[in-house]
């Protein structure tokens, strides 16, 4: 038992951070979601109710009858669709990029890796505003089109879901590139040579050797993009014009303008639970693959 104590001492800072900044706030959020909302915002700390979760699926009419309300479910579905579309698009963009990057000479790889992380150095808000300047009617892209001869052309994209998607893909691309790159860079080059030696052409080397061995990075990238994308509200608000509500915006609104903390907490907690289930499924699916790795 004496040996355990110094170890406990060593992990205690990490435990304090985890409990204080993750477990405790999650607990508070779960607790708040079961409270009654206050008249002017805030919550009544002594009054418990499941109202917040009921509100997610039903709405009360004037006579206090419950009717199914799919508004919030639709917002969830829309957010999931958008997040999935973002994840798939970033994956499609990231694969050729990483394939190219991972097989450059070592010195150039370091430089390329730095270039990928450059966008992180600028504030997310600023970068989204920059996209407004590019996409708006009469913006940089429109003027470019005029300059090459399409006199009255306009892409008419700003404040549409497409603009949201562009913004999200742009913001989250590095989160896809980095884990895939790490996976690909680790692949033993002799495996690739060996596949060529056994008669595989370039495409089949990619499909049969490189992609399967990059799977941990691909799945990691999908999670890293999909999950935060669900809660994103900067791009939907700025580029999508806030016209079609996303989960992130909805939650933010509950704590802000709507002053409905329990409902905001319930939404956030529902989202959290859904993501946990998704991660657990992923774990079940890939456990076998992880065990088989040398």
């Amino acid at each position, binding site marked *: 038992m004496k040996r355990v104590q110094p170890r406990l001492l060593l992990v205690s800072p990490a435990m304090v951070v985890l409990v204080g900044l993750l477990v405790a706030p999650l607990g508070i959020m779960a607790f708040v979601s079961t409270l009654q909302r206050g008249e002017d915002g805030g919550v009544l700390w002594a009054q418990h109710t499941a109202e917040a979760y009921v509100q997610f699926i039903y709405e009360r009419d004037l006579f206090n009858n419950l009717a199914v309300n799919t508004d919030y479910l639709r917002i969830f579905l829309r957010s999931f669709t958008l997040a999935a579309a973002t994840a798939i698009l970033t994956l499609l963009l990231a694969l050729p990029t990483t394939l190219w990057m991972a097989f450059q000479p070592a010195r150039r790889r370091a430089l390329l890796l730095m270039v990928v992380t450059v966008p992180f150095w600028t504030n997310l808000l600023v970068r989204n505003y920059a996209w407004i300047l590019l996409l708006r009617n009469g913006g940089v892209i429109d003027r470019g089109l005029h300059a090459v001869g399409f006199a009255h052309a306009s892409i008419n994209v700003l404040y549409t879901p497409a603009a949201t998607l562009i913004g999200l893909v742009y913001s989250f691309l590095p989160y896809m590139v980095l884990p895939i790159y790490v996976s690909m860079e680790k692949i033993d080059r002799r*495996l690739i040579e060996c596949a060529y*030696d*056994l*008669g595989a052409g370039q495409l089949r080397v990619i499909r049969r050797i490189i992609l399967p061995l990059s799977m941990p990075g691909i799945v990691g990238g999908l999670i890293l993009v999909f999950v935060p994308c669900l809660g994103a509200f900067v791009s939907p608000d700025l580029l999508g014009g806030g016209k079609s509500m996303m989960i992130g915006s909805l939650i933010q609104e509950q704590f802000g303008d709507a002053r409905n903390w329990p409902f905001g907490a319930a939404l956030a907690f529902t989202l959290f639970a859904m993501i946990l289930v998704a991660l657990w499924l992923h774990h079940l699916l890939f456990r076998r693959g992880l065990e088989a790795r040398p």
Partner: protein
Amino acid sequence: MLCQGLSKSFGAVVALDDVSLTIEPNEFFTLLGPSGCGKTTLLRAIAGFVGLDRGSISVHGQGVDGLAPHRRPVNTVFQSYAIFPHMTAAENIAFGLEMDRWPKRRVAARVAEMLDLVQLSGLGDRRPAQLSGGQQQRVAVARALAKNPRVLLLDEPLSALDQKLRVGMQLELKRLQRETGITFIFVTHDQREALTMSDRVAVMNAGAILQIGSPQDIYERPTARFVADFIGETNFLLAEAVGGNRYRLASGVTLEAAEPGQEGLSVTLAIRPERARLSATGPVTGRVQDIVYEGTDTIFRLVLAGGESVRIRQQNSDGARPRFVIGDMAAVTLPPESVRVLTA
């Protein structure tokens, strides 16, 4: 297989310097040399992974210059096996056949046949992580042989195995080569491996082939000092040719060698320690400097009158033999047929 005038430089480093060689069908041919001598570069050039600066390669009369690795009729067993970690043993072996678009049933039959050949029957469903080093090695060999290549290239395939396993795999590879009748080109820096396995050996150094011959040839009749020195142990004695097969040592003593030399020419005489014999009296004498008992053999080191040091390896036996202690004067007998004359 024919290689003509192969040259390759990496920057200022010459990896291959005008290398030419012919390898017969069904031959077990070994490229032997220290690391960095160019033997792996030569192998990779044959496989198509290294582009040549000059020269051409043909396999069974078919030129392969400019062909991508996957279009060449050769397969490689890589140094670290390079087993695909995400596939089972059977899937690894099937890979090359699938690349050639063999029908499924024939692939299955061939994989079973190959597993049998390398004595891994029943382990086809194992993942590489569940196989020992020796078993992975067998999968690598089976995978490369499955496509029935004209030539199998083996890049130091045994260097990662422990000594005991290594000897077993040497016999195994030799058996596979006999049974399949495929030409093996084997790269190694281990002279013992080269001698025991090969039909012919090419000794390389600094990007050039110094000598090609049977194991007996290169051991018994080395033509270059490097070859004599790299393979086994050799005593070198500087001498001057005095006509016929006779040479004069630094001490003025003359002795007979296996080959004649032009009178007045400075040469190096080479003799293996186990061919030299120690005796009480004789023309070439020296003082016993060291005696090392090695179980089967005892090694004596003699310093000759001219200052040269000669090692003599004598097999230990129960029979009577001259006893020497350090500091004794002794004579060394150098049988003429074992004294090689090196000019290079």
